[in-house]
């Protein structure tokens, strides 16, 4: 029983990280109807930026904030420079561009930093919090950080005029223009936010999986599974999906299928959801009048 509780809690911790990456995917999907395959690599690259800053002697939290900011700028620039010109391109062309971005980020990072695995610091204390033995401080901290991100995002979209404008632009671009919203900038902003959230996820996962250019391969698959399980257009669903996938992966890996087949859980979930319930648990089933 003890081992089981331990696995569930550890699953929640990694689930939180999947949740933040899934959230980033959902944000871009909602705004542009595209799935950004390069989301994981962008997060990985941001994490390397953080590593550079920490190694240069910067404190963890200042480096964290600066990384989030830089990731945001990176997201905006990518949207403006690379995505904007292919706005009206067929979906396959867009997919190819995303995969290209993935490969470029991966190899540029490898070229700059080499493929040697590096350790990444955790901002949380070494000894477990609250005198319990189930979860490390980093795991609890990662969950906390994810929840804070989700709350901030919720507040932003729900209560600020800019958040409202972003929702409007995603939903009905033409009407949004007619009330004076600069729709193009809203998309860029969405990319920026998604990249920033991804960056946070990267910095939280790096102490667990270590830092190397391929660290996000598996994580991104779990994030896809999470986003699909929750419903690809539902941010709350993505977070729920993230925690669910994290727990399932851990529990099944430990007790049922063994660690080697863990990644298969994500793939089975993706296929299962697409076959049985393509809209996920909380996704909107689009009904059109004929």
């Amino acid at each position, binding site marked *: 029983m003890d081992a089981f509780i331990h696995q569930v809690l550890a699953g929640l911790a990694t689930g939180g990280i999947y949740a933040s990456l899934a959230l980033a995917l959902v944000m871009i999907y909602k705004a542009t109807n595209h799935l950004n395959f390069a989301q994981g690599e962008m997060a990985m690259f941001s994490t390397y930026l953080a590593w550079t800053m920490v190694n240069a002697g910067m404190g963890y939290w200042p480096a964290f904030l600066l990384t989030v900011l830089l990731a945001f700028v990176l997201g905006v620039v990518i949207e403006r420079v690379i995505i904007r010109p292919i706005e009206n391109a067929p979906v396959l062309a867009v997919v190819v561009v995303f995969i290209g971005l993935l490969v470029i980020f991966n190899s540029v990072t490898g070229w700059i930093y080499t493929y040697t695995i590096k350790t990444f610091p955790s901002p949380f204390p070494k000894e477990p919090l609250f005198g319990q033995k189930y979860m490390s401080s980093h795991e609890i901290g990662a969950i906390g950080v994810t929840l804070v991100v989700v709350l901030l995002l919720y507040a932003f979209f729900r209560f600020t*005029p800019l958040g*409202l404008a972003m929702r409007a632009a995603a939903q*009905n671009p033409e*009407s949004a*223009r*007619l*009330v*004076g*919203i600069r729709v193009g900038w809203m998309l860029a902003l969405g990319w920026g936010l998604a990249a920033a959230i991804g960056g946070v996820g990267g910095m939280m996962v790096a102490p667990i999986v270590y830092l190397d250019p391929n660290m996000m391969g598996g994580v991104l698959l779990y994030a896809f599974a999470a986003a699909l399980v929750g419903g690809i257009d539902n941010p709350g669903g993505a977070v729920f999906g993230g925690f669910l996938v994290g727990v399932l992966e851990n529990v099944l890996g430990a007790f049922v299928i063994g660690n080697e087949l863990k990644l298969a859980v994500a793939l089975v979930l993706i296929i299962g959801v697409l076959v049985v319930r393509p809209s996920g648990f909380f996704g909107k089933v689009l009904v059109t009048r004929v």
Partner: protein
Amino acid sequence: MALLEASALHASYGQTRVLHGVSFAMEEGTITTLLGANGAGKTTTLRALCGMVRTEGEVRFNGARIDGRATEDIVRLGIAHVPDGRGTFLNLTTEENLRLGAYSRKDRGAVEEDLERVYGYFPRLKERHAQQAGTLSGGEQQMLAVSRGLMLRPKLMLLDEPSFGLSPLIVKELFGILRAVNERERVSLLVVEQNAAMALDLADHAYLIETGRVVLSGTADDIKRDDAVRRSYLGY
């Protein structure tokens, strides 16, 4: 000086040319209507004014050229466009829809006051302020679209078939409110209508568009008395 002046507007969708040199002008504070049958180019004319379709020709608002500018910049000059199909943000609440109307305004403080102002015109929207806009009836969505336009505090409002799909009773109510808005707030209105009788009762001036050209213009009363218009558009 005319508030809005369009000269020799051409517009096309892909290869298909829809406007062949539409010219008209309207004075500040007036109600002008563009009449015409289905497919005559009325909606396209409104879209051309707002930079929503590729155009050639000249559009002046308060004397300054606005053709070729981005839609969102034109809106920020104080031109509210109540589009064909109402343009409702279906998943947002009624009140969020209204707040979006005021999005580009600088005076955020006056927005609350303006909410009450449009709720004064359309009490039904106040009752449904927290409801998803997609669940409103057609008439309510049209009221919402007009109200969203009013939230901009526009100088000029472009209305694309405000009567479309509404019951005669609601059309009457809506047109009454449009008249009130024009008289009380000095908002100039440019109304595109298929319902020529209603539009001519509301408007001061009218232009008749046929296949992308203005074929007749004058005061609403003159147009109402024109034999050809009476037979083809008023049906008596």
